[in-house]
C-alpha cells in the first residue's frame, strides 16, 4: 500500500489488496502477529497519503460503485469484521457494478451483483443498448466460469526450472533433478496421459536432457549449497511468472528488432476498442508480423456480406423495433446469432397482444435445423441451408417481377443473377407467398440472414431489404450499417498452417483463442502448430492449444479485469473488475496476479514493461476524449459516470454510414455459389456451450438444450425420415463424412430437421480441458472445412454401437395416444396444458384460452373453503407464452440465484435434475415439419396447494402473502409433496449434491439462499429472499407496501423478452394484475382446484393464411 502514490493509476487494485490484507489478522512473519496486517496504513507514509485518505478511498469506491471494492476474498482462517465500516457498505447487502461481457459477436451490458466482494450473479444493464436489462443463459453462466476449478492457476511451460539446497553440491543437484523430473515432468505427463509408462519414460528423458543441456547455477550460502537448474525440456511444468516473463520478454525484444518477422499473433474476435488500439500498436511495432483470427464465433460471413455491398470496414446490425414482418433465413437471431439478447427484446415488443385488434408481428423462419427462432416462427419452412440462397432469390424475383419493386440501376445485374433460382416446388411457392407478404408490408418488413449463410446470401439480403423499403442507410431502417474503422487487419487461420509448414512463421502467440481445437478440420492446425519453434498460449484454460504450447499461462476472467467493449451498434462500456484475480502465481519477489489479455498484449508491445489494465484502458479513453492527441486524460467525474452507468457517454462519435451500393460484386458472388449434392452437414454454434467457451461450465452442460432437451452432450440431429431410412434411433452411432474427414456421432432424432440434412453443434468432445468437459459430447471440428463455412455436403451411414444420450424430457407430445389415436376403445382430447390459437381464432373468440378447461368453473367442487390469505401483498406471476422464446436464460438465472446444484449426466438420466424451473417443450404436427412450443414451468404457488396437506411434518406451508413456502430445516424428505404436485416442480436432493464444495466454488453461492442438504425437497420460492429484502427496505422507508416493479424474480430479471412478470395481484394497477386481466390468461390444470398464482398468457400465432395449404 505504501507504494500507492508512486503511480496513481494503480489505485483501485491496491485498495483491493489493502482490504484483503486487513482481514488477515495473524501474519506469518516473525513479529508480524503483533500488529494486524495493514496496520502500517495507519502511519503517515512519507509521500503524504494518510489513513484518512485510505478510508476515503474505501468509501469512495463503495459509494461510486467505481471499482473492485469488493475484492475481499475472505480467508478460511479467523476473520474480524470491519472495525471502521466504510460508509454505505452494509455487510450482507449486495452491491451492483456495471460491466459488460462479450459473447461471440454480441456484447451484453451487465450489472453484476457483488456479495461481500464476490461476484455471484449477473443481470442485464438497463442502460446498455445491447442488453436493455435482459441477459441470456451464457451471461448467467459466465459467473460460474470465474469460479471454474479447472482454470489454469499458474503458468505452465517447457522452460523448466528447479532448485534445491543441500549441504553438498552433488546432493543439491540430485534433489533438484528429482524435483524437476519427478515432481514436475512425471506428474504432468501422468495427469495428461494417465499412463505410468509414459510418465516414467518422460522422467527418464528429462534426466537425460539435464545431463546433456541442463544449465546449473550453484550458490553457496549460509544454508548450504543451492543448486538451481534451468532446462528447456519438452514437457510443461509449473513455471514461476518471473521466469516466464523473462523468457517471453526476451523473445519479444528479439522479435521487435526484426519487426516481428516470423512472428504470428493469433487472436480471438475482440470487440474491445482498447484491444483493437493495442493491436494497431502491435501492427505498428511489429510490421512484419502476421495477425490471424481464430474464432468460430466471429461473424465472418455477415462481415464479408456487408463489405461486399458497402465497402471495406462495413458492418451490419439489425433493429427489430418496428419490424412487422420478419423473415429469418437460417438465422437464430433469438438464440445464438449476433445481438440475440437485444433482438429478442425488440422482437418481443411486437408480440405482446392484449386484444385481437392489437398489432402483432409475423415471423417467418426458413432453416435446416429447428432453433428457438424456428420454434417461435409463425410459419416455418424446413429447408436445407444450401437452398436458402435460392429461396431468397425467389423472394427477390417475386418482389421485382410481380410487385415491381424499384431496383436501383446498379443492382440490375444482381436482380438478373438471381432469376430462375432452382428450388423445389413447395419452397418456391412458399417463397413467393412470403415475397407477397413482404411487399404488402413495405417499410415494415425485414430479412435477417444468419451467420451460417455465405457472404453472397448476406449481400443478396441487403439488396432485398432495400427492395422492401429498407434502404439500409441506417436510422431509421431495420438493417443498419456502420463502419468499423479500427478493425484490425487480420488473416484467416487458413493461412496460418501453410505459414507454419513452410517455416515463414516460427513463433506463434495465441491470445485467448484455441486454434488447435477450433481449426482441427481440413485446416489441421493442431498438427501445424507443432511445427512452431515457439508456441505461446494465453487463456483461461490449459485447452487443446495450451497443452501443445511451449508456454501456456493463465489470463483473467472478464469479471477480474479492466477492459472495454463496444457493441455492434456502437454503445460502449468500460468493464470494471468485480474482484481481484482469483489466482496468483508465486514468484520469489512476491505474488503476481494473473494478467488480463489487454495486459498481455500491452506487454508484447512493450517487452519488459508490465502495464495495468486500468491504466491501459484509461489511457486509451484519454486519447479518445481528446480526439487522438496523445496524453489526454478522462476527467475523474466523467470516468466515474461511465463506470457507474456502464455506458460511455458524452463523446461525440459520429459515424460515417456506409451505403450498400456495390451490387455487381454481390452478383458475382451469388453466381459463384456452388450447388452441391449429397447429405448436408450443418455446423451450429451450440446453444449451450457456444463453440467451446462454456464446455467446462456445469450450468451450461446441465442446462437442457432449448429444443431437444439434451444435457451434457451434443449429437447429430437428424429428421425422423432420415433416421428411419438409416434405421437408427436415438443414441445409435452414425458415421458422418465430409470428403475424407469422418466422425462417428450418436443420433438424436430432431423433429423439424430439413430432409437429408444433419445438424451438429460445436464445442463438445474437449480433450483435457477439465473435469466438467470430460467425456461430454463429440468433437465435430475435424469435419469442418474452415471456420467460415457452416454447412457442407457429405454423407452419413449407419455406424456401430450406441451411446447414452440423456434428455430431461422424454415425452414431447400433449396427446398421450400419439397421432394414431388410442390403443383401444378410449379416445382422448389433447391435454389442455399449452393453449394457443392463431389470430383469426383469437378474433373469433378472445376467450379461447378458457376453452381448454375440462369443466366449467361452477361445476368444480371443493371439499373445503378456499383459504383466506390476509397478507398486505398477494404475490403472483404471469408468463406470456407469446413472448417466451425458450432461450434458457431464466433456467440458468434461477440456478445462479438459488444455489441450485448440478447433478451430472448420470443423475439427470434417472430424472434427478434439480432445476427449479424448466421449459417444457411439446411438438405438434408432422414430425418433419414439426411445430414446437415451449412453456416455462416453475412452482405455481397454488392457493390450495396439494403439496401442503400431505406433508407429515408441515415443512411446506402457505404464507399469508400467497407463497408456498418451503422450510428446508423441517423437511424430512418423504417426497409425498413431490408426488402430489400436479406440476412436478418439486426437486429432491437424492444425494448430498453440495458435499465437498471447493472453497472457490463456494464463493459463487448466494448467501441469501440456503445451500440444501441431502434428503430435503426444494423448489421455486418466487425468490423469497428478494421479496424479503424489498419488504425490509420498504419498512425502513416507512412504507406499508412494496411498490410494483421493485421486486424482480431472478427469472423475470434475466428474461430477454420480459415474458415473465412478477408482482402483487391484490393491487389492480400492478403489471402482473393487468396482465392477468388479459383474456389470454389461463391457469395450468385449474380443474384440480389448485388456484395457481402463476398463470400463463395463451399463445397467439400469426401465420400467413396464404401459406396454409402450401
Amino acid at each position, binding site marked *: 500500500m505504501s507504494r500507492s502514490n508512486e503511480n496513481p493509476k494503480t489505485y483501485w487494485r491496491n485498495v483491493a489488496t489493502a482490504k484483503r490484507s486487513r482481514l488477515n489478522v495473524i501474519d506469518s512473519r516473525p513479529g508480524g502477529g503483533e500488529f494486524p496486517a495493514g496496520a502500517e496504513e495507519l502511519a503517515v507514509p512519507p509521500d503524504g497519503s494518510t489513513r484518512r485518505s485510505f478510508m476515503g478511498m474505501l468509501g469512495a469506491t463503495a459509494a461510486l460503485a467505481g471499482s473492485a471494492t469488493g475484492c475481499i476474498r475472505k480467508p478460511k482462517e479467523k476473520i474480524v469484521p470491519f472495525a471502521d465500516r466504510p460508509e454505505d457498505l452494509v455487510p450482507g447487502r449486495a452491491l451492483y457494478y456495471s460491466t459488460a461481457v462479450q459473447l461471440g459477436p454480441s456484447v451484453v451490458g451487465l450489472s453484476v451483483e457483488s456479495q461481500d466482494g464476490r461476484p455471484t450473479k449477473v443481470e442485464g444493464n438497463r442502460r446498455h443498448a445491447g442488453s436493455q436489462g435482459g441477459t441470456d443463459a451464457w451471461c448467467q453462466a459466465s459467473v460460474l466460469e470465474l469460479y471454474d476449478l479447472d482454470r489454469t492457476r499458474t503458468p505452465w511451460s517447457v522452460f523448466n526450472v528447479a532448485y534445491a539446497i543441500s549441504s553438498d553440491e552433488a546432493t543439491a543437484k540430485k534433489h533438484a533433478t528429482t524435483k524437476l523430473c519427478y515432481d514436475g515432468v512425471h506428474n504432468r505427463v501422468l495427469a495428461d496421459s494417465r499412463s505410468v509408462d509414459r510418465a516414467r519414460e518422460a522422467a527418464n528423458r528429462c534426466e537425460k536432457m539435464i545431463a546433456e543441456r541442463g544449465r546449473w547455477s550453484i550458490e553457496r550460502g549460509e544454508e548450504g549449497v543451492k543448486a538451481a537448474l534451468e532446462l528447456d525440456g519438452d514437457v510443461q511444468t509449473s513455471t514461476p511468472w518471473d521466469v516466464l516473463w523473462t523468457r517471453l520478454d526476451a523473445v519479444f525484444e528479439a522479435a521487435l528488432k526484426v519487426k516481428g518477422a516470423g512472428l504470428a499473433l493469433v487472436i480471438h474476435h475482440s470487440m474491445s476498442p482498447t484491444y483493437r488500439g493495442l493491436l494497431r500498436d502491435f501492427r505498428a511495432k511489429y510490421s512484419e508480423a502476421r495477425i490471424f483470427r481464430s474464432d468460430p464465433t466471429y461473424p465472418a460471413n455477415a462481415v464479408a456480406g456487408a463489405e461486399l455491398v458497402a465497402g471495406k470496414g462495413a458492418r451490419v446490425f439489425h433493429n427489430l423495433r418496428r419490424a412487422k414482418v420478419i423473415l429469418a433465413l437460417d438465422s437464430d437471431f433469438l438464440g445464438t446469432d449476433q445481438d440475440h439478447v437485444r433482438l429478442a427484446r425488440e422482437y418481443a415488443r411486437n408480440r405482446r397482444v392484449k386484444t385481437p385488434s392489437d398489432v402483432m408481428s409475423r415471423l417467418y423462419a426458413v432453416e435446416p435445423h429447428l432453433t428457438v427462432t424456428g420454434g417461435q416462427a409463425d410459419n416455418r419452412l424446413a429447408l436445407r441451408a444450401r437452398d436458402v440462397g435460392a429461396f431468397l432469390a425467389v423472394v427477390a424475383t417475386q418482389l421485382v417481377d410481380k410487385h415491381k419493386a424499384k431496383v436501383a440501376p446498379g443492382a440490375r445485374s444482381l436482380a438478373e443473377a438471381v432469376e430462375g433460382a432452382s428450388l423445389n416446388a413447395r419452397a418456391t411457392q412458399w417463397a413467393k407467398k412470403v415475397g407477397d407478404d413482404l411487399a404488402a408490408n413495405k417499410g415494415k418488413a425485414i430479412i435477417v440472414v444468419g451467420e451460417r449463410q455465405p457472404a453472397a446470401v448476406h449481400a443478396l439480403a441487403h439488396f432485398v431489404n432495400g427492395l422492401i423499403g429498407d434502404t439500409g442507410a441506417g436510422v431509421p431502417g431495420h438493417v443498419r450499417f456502420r463502419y468499423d474503422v479500427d478493425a484490425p487487419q487480420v488473416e484467416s487461420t487458413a493461412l496460418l498452417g501453410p505459414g507454419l509448414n513452410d517455416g515463414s512463421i516460427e513463433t506463434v502467440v495465441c491470445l485467448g483463442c484455441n486454434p488447435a481445437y477450433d481449426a482441427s478440420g481440413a485446416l489441421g492446425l493442431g498438427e501445424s502448430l507443432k511445427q512452431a519453434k515457439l508456441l505461446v498460449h494465453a487463456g483461461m484454460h490449459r485447452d487443446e492449444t495450451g497443452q501443445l504450447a511451449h508456454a501456456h499461462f493463465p489470463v483473467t476472467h472478464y469479471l477480474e479485469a479492466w477492459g472495454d467493449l463496444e457493441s455492434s451498434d456502437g454503445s460502449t462500456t468500460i468493464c470494471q473488475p468485480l474482484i481481484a484475480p482469483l489466482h496468483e502465481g508465486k514468484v520469489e519477489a512476491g505474488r503476481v496476479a494473473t494478467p488480463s489479455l489487454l495486459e498481455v498484449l500491452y506487454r508484447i508491445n512493450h517487452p519488459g514493461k508490465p502495464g495495468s489494465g486500468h491504466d491501459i484502458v484509461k489511457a486509451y479513453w484519454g486519447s479518445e476524449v481528446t480526439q487522438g492527441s496523445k496524453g489526454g486524460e478522462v476527467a475523474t467525474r466523467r470516468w466515474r459516470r461511465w463506470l457507474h452507468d456502464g455506458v460511455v457517454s458524452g463523446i461525440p462519435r459520429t459515424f460515417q454510414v456506409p451505403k450498400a451500393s456495390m451490387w455487381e460484386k454481390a452478383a458475382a458472388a451469388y453466381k459463384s455459389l456452388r450447388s452441391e449434392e449429397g447429405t448436408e452437414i450443418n455446423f451450429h454454434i451450440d446453444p449451450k456451450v457456444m463453440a467451446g467457451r462454456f464446455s467446462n461450465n456445469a450450468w451450461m452442460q446441465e442446462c437442457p438444450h432449448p429444443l431437444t432437451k439434451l444435457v451434457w452432450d451434443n449429437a447429430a440431429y437428424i429428421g425422423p425420415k432420415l433416421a428411419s431410412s438409416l434405421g437408427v434411433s436415438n443414441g445409435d452411432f452414425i458415421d458422418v463424412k465430409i470428403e475424407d474427414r469422418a466422425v462417428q456421432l450418436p443420433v438424436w432424432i430432431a423433429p423439424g430437421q430439413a430432409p437429408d440434412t444433419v445438424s451438429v453443434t460445436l464445442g463438445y468432445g474437449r480433450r483435457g480441458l477439465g473435469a466438467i468437459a470430460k467425456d461430454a459430447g463429440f468433437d465435430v471440428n475435424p469435419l469442418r472445412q474452415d471456420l467460415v463455412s457452416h454447412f457442407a455436403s457429405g454423407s452419413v451411414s449407419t455406424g456401430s454401437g450406441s451411446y447414452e444420450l440423456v434428455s430431461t424430457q422424454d415425452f414431447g407430445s400433449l396427446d398421450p395416444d400419439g397421432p394414431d389415436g388410442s390403443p383401444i376403445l378410449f379416445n382422448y382430447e389433447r391435454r389442455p396444458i399449452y393453449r394457443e390459437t392463431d389470430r383469426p381464432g383469437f378474433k373469433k373468440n378472445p376467450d379461447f384460452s378458457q376453452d381448454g378447461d375440462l369443466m366449467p368453473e361452477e361445476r368444480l367442487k371443493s371439499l373445503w373453503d378456499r383459504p383466506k390469505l390476509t397478507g398486505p401483498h398477494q404475490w403472483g406471476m404471469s408468463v406470456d407464452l407469446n413472448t417466451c422464446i425458450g432461450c434458457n436464460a431464466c433456467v440458468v438465472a434461477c440456478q445462479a440465484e438459488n444455489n441450485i446444484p448440478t447433478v451430472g449426466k448420470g443423475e439427470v438420466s434417472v430424472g434427478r435434475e434439480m432445476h427449479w424451473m424448466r421449459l417444457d417443450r411439446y411438438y405438434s404436427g408432422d414430425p418433419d415439419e414439426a411445430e414446437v412450443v415451449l*412453456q416455462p414451468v416453475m412452482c405455481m404457488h397454488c392457493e390450495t396447494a396439494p403439496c401442503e396437506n400431505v406433508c407429515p411434518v408441515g415443512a411446506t406451508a402457505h404464507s399469508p402473502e400467497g407463497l408456498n413456502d418451503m422450510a428446508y430445516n423441517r423437511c424430512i424428505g418423504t417426497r409425498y409433496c413431490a408426488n402430489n404436485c400436479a406440476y412436478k416442480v418439486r426437486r429432491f436432493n437424492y444425494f448430498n449434491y453440495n458435499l465437498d464444495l471447493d472453497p472457490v466454488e463456494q464463493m459463487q453461492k448466494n448467501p441469501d439462499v440456503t445451500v440444501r442438504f441431502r434428503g430435503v425437497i426444494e423448489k421455486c420460492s418466487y425468490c423469497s429472499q428478494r421479496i424479503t429484502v424489498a419488504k425490509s427496505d420498504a419498512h425502513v422507508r416507512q412504507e406499508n407496501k412494496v411498490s410494483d416493479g421493485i421486486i424482480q424474480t431472478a427469472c423475470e430479471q434475466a428474461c430477454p423478452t420480459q415474458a415473465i412478470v412478477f408482482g402483487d395481484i391484490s393491487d389492480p394497477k400492478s403489471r402482473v394484475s393487468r396482465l392477468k386481466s388479459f383474456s389470454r390468461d389461463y391457469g395450468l390444470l385449474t380443474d384440480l382446484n389448485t388456484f395457481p398464482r402463476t398463470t400463463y398468457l395463451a399463445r397467439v400465432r400469426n401465420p400467413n393464411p396464404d401459406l396454409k395449404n402450401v
Partner: protein
Amino acid sequence: MSAQIHTEDPLDPLSGRKVLAEGGVSFHDITEAVCKPVEDPPLMWWPAFLLSNVLLGVLGVSVLWLLWMGPGVWGVSSPVGWGWAIVDFVFWVGIGHAGTLISAVLFLFRQDWRTSINRAAEAMTIFAVVIAGMMPGLHTGRPWFDYWMFFLPNQMGVWPNFRSPLIWDVFAVGTYFTVSLLFWYMGLIPDLATMRDRARTPIRRMAYGVASLGWRSSTRHWVHYEKAYMLLAGLATPLVLSVHTIVSFDFAVAQLPGWHTTIFPPYFVAGAVFSGFGMVLTLLIPLRKWYRLEHIITIKHLENMAKIVLLTGSLVGYAYAMEFFIAYYSGNDYESFVFINRAFGDYAWAYWIMVTCNVITPQLMWFKKVRRSPAALFILSIFVNIGMWFERFVITVTSLHHDFLPSSWDYFSPTIWDVGLLVGTFGLFFFLFSLFCRFLPMIAIAELKSVMPQANPHYHAKEGEHE
C-alpha cells in the same frame, strides 16, 4: 400323519364336523407334537435359519449403504418419488393382515379351525408389521428426523401435520402393531407356561417362567384370560379394517390420477387379506411337513384358507375391473389415460403379472383337488405373493410415472439397492420367523385342546384310545 391327500376328512363323533386334530390324538400328543420341535428342532431349521441370516445380511448392507449415501442409491427420481420402499411397505402391511383376521375376526365368529393356525399367522403379522414400519422410516430423505412424525412436545411448538395421511399411517400402523403384539402375547401365556413346565434347563425354565407371567392355569386365571382375549379380539377386529384403509389413504388422498379413487379402502383391505392368507399358506405348508404337524394343520385347514384366498382374490379382481369402469365413466381424461396406460403402457408387463397372479391363477382354487393339494396351494400362494407385490408396484409406480404434464414423464428402473432391500426384508422376516419357530410353540396348544372332541364334556373315549 401321512402327507397323502385325503379326499374325505375324519369327523368329530359329537358335532359331526371335521375334527381339528386328526389321527385320534390325545391332549398329550398335541402338547408333544407342538413342544417337541421347540425343544429339539428338526434338521430343516438350521439351513432355513442360516439362509435367512444371509438375507438379513443383505438387508444390513442395503440399509447401511442407504443411510450413508441417501435415497439416491435407489431408482426413485422425479416424477416417481416413491419406489420400492413404499411398495415393500404396503406389501408387508398387507401380509400383516391375515394374522389378526384369523385370530380376532375368526375368533369372534367362532371359527374353531383358526386355532391350528392362528399362532403362526399372528407371529407372521407381527414380523411383517415390523418390516412394514421400517420401510417408510428408511424411505425418508433424512431418517434421523423421522421422530418429527411423532407427537413429541418440543421447544419450537411445531406439531406434525394432522392433514397428512402419513401421520394417520403412523397411528394406524402403530396401533395395529401394539394391539397385535398384545393379542399374540396374551394367547401365548398358557403355552409359555406349558413350555416352562416342560423345561429341562434352568435357563429355559427361567426364561419361559418370566415370560409366562406366573400362569398357573387356575380357573380364575382362565376366566380373566378368556375375558381379556375376547376384549382384545373385539379391539383388534376394527383394526384389521382400519389399518389398510389408512394405508390406502396414502394414495387415495393424493390427487394423482390412479391414486385418487374412493374404491381404495375396501379394495386394499381385500387385497391385504388375500396377500396375508397367501403368505400364511406359503409359511405353513412347508412348516407342517418339517415339523410333522400335518395332523394338526390339516388339509381341511389349507382348504379353508384356499377358499378365503379365492374369495378375496375375486374381490380384488372385481376392484380392478371397477377401477377401469370408473376411470372410463368419470370422463376424466387424466384418469382414463392412467388406466389405459397401466394395462397397455410402459408397465403393461407389471400389470399383467399382477392380473395373472391375483385374479387368474387363484381361480384354480375352484377345484377341490387343487384346494386339497398342499403342493398346488404352495405354488399358488407364491403366485399370490408375487401378484400382490406387483399390485403395489403397479399402483405406486404406474400412476406416478405418467401423471398430468407429459413433460415430466419418465420411466422408473430399480437399482441393485432396491432389490437388496426387498430381498433383505424377506431375510429379516424369515430370521424372525425362524426364531419364533425355535423358541415358541407355533400352535396355540391350549386353544387347540379346547376345541378338540376330548374337551367336550360329552366325549367318551373309545376303546384303545387315550383318555
